């Protein structure tokens, strides 16, 4: 167990190291000189000497590997540097401002999706080929094939323009959360219901379910105690996957609804060439993925005694 964890953490560290190098390299290829941009793209008159002095101050004249090492050292200490566009604002502040918005969005979306998809998937898996089963399958297929940003636009047209129930953009009131939560939940529901159905179908053919049936247990007990407990296992992986991509999964949806979360911060920063923000975010998001992958595997091993970690 301890050995397994060490190996996983070691691999995780390698992955994060590679991602940080890759990100750093990509960001240096970005078009545009940050110093030039900082001074209003040539609108602020400063001399070449002054520009050079600033480059010197920021360490932009150092060789690339030195620049990388300085950046990596600061990242490890939790110092993400200052935004290049919003002058003087630490990147960390910008990220911490945006996290609660994205987290709220995702917690409600995942909660809603689980609440609907799990009972639906179980019911469809138990009553195979029933109308409910077909409806679930069709719904899942449609949900997976529908781009979330298009669904968002259509909901805006229906519920904001025609019915006037919710604001189309922004977060001026809590109502602004409703449509994006529905959009994100729909997408997750489609996947969760499909996984839940498949795993229920599989579990229902297992020997222990047949045994439970054979010894005359009520059908309710068989389903709840024996079947569902086991068919829920694959859901752990799906939830782990959702948490891993918690902050990045909403990039497009946040843009559709103009919501000031991590996704919006990310796309805005890419377009504003604020590469301090972009590179910090990419590394942070990757750390989240690596960490939640390890946690998912550990939880899985804890819940399912058949899996022994070696």
């Amino acid at each position: 167990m301890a050995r397994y964890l060490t190996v996983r953490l070691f691999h995780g560290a390698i992955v994060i190291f590679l991602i940080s190098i890759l990100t750093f390299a990509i960001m240096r290829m970005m078009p545009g000189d940050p110093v030039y941009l900082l001074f209003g793209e040539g609108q602020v008159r400063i001399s070449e000497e002054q520009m050079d002095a600033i480059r010197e101050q920021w360490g932009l004249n150092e060789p690339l590997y030195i620049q990388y090492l300085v950046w990596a050292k600061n990242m490890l200490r939790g110092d993400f540097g200052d935004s290049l566009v919003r002058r003087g604002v630490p990147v960390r502040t910008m990220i911490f401002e945006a996290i609660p918005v994205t987290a709220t969005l995702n917690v409600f979306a995942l909660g809603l999706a689980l609440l609907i998809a799990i009972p639906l998937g179980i019911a469809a898996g138990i009553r195979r080929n029933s109308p409910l089963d077909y409806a679930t399958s069709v719904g899942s297929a449609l949900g997976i094939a529908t781009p979330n940003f298009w669904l968002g636009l259509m909901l805006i047209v229906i519920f904001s323009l025609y019915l006037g129930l919710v604001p189309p953009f922004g977060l001026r009131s809590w109502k602004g959360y409703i449509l994006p939560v529905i959009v994100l939940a729909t997408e997750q529901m489609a996947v969760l219901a499909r996984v839940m159905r498949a795993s229920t179908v599989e579990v229902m053919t297992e020997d222990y379910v047949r045994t439970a049936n054979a010894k005359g247990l009520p059908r309710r007990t068989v389903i709840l105690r024996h079947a569902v407990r086991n068919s829920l296992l694959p859901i752990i992986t799906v939830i782990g996957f959702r948490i891993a991509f918690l902050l990045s999964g909403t990039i497009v949806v946040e843009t559709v609804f103009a919501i000031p979360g991590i996704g919006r911060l990310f796309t805005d920063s890419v377009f504003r060439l604020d590469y301090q923000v972009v590179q910090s975010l990419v590394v942070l998001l990757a750390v989240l993925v690596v960490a939640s992958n390890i946690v998912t595997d550990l939880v899985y091993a804890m819940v399912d005694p058949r899996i022994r970690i070696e």
Partner: protein
Amino acid sequence: MSATSFEQPQATILAEETKHRSELSQSWRRFRANRMAVVGLIVVALLVLMAIFAPYIAPYDPITDIFRGMRGVGPSPEHPFGFDHLGRDLLSRVIYGSRVALLVGIIATIISLLIGVTVGAISGFFGGWPDSILSRIVDTLMAFPLIALLIVLAAVLGPSLPTTIFVIGITVWARYARVVRADVMSLRSRDFITAATASGVKNSRIIWRHIIPNIMGPVIVLASLGIGSIIILEAALSFLGVGVRPPTPSWGGILADGRAYIIRYPHIAFFPGIMIVITVLAFNFVGDGLRDALDPHDRE
């Protein structure tokens, strides 16, 4: 007792009844039996025809035919999808948009298959340090938030159709590599591979002649299921403005126009989205059908 009463049962009739069928024709029979898969295949074929013959099908030019005074006018019998914010015929733009979607979906899939199968085969066949290095690279790609990586890469390289195809192709192969690696590892211990190795066949020949043909089934299934999500990725990139650039008509790009003018001209966003859903559904149905047809273990 005459000798004729001891006639052997006629073996020839039996042989006729169980006519030999090739693996391929059996798969095709299983595929044909799946109604949704056949519908999907027909829709895909129609979409491909639509993309190839777009200039003959589209009533107007998607870029140069601008109707004055018709900006954002809704659907009518002559223009069933209406006009966009510049007064261009939306039906024509949506028809031409299928070119971008299919081009990106198919070419990016081919690029990612080439990389993924090569990496997976090397990793699974040789094991050891090549496997360790390649597996870490695969892990790294899988841990990258895909859409974030695509946005950054596309922004760095400059948004265009070739960039879109390239960045999607070089980022989505990790899944294929994982599957191929696992399949190759389990194949490597099979007797026919041991026999080939023992009789002195070169590694490269074993990989190409014995291993690759055996893993093509699952790879084709994965690829056909992946095209749909690649088409959605392309649409997302174009929607965000880092994919195919205007005025080239793409479904994601028209959706971006639709978002910008959602309050004034809400009809713009409707049709390209419907086309994406239909296209992705069709590819996914074909993929499901292929999975059931090519993988006999998974049949019910």
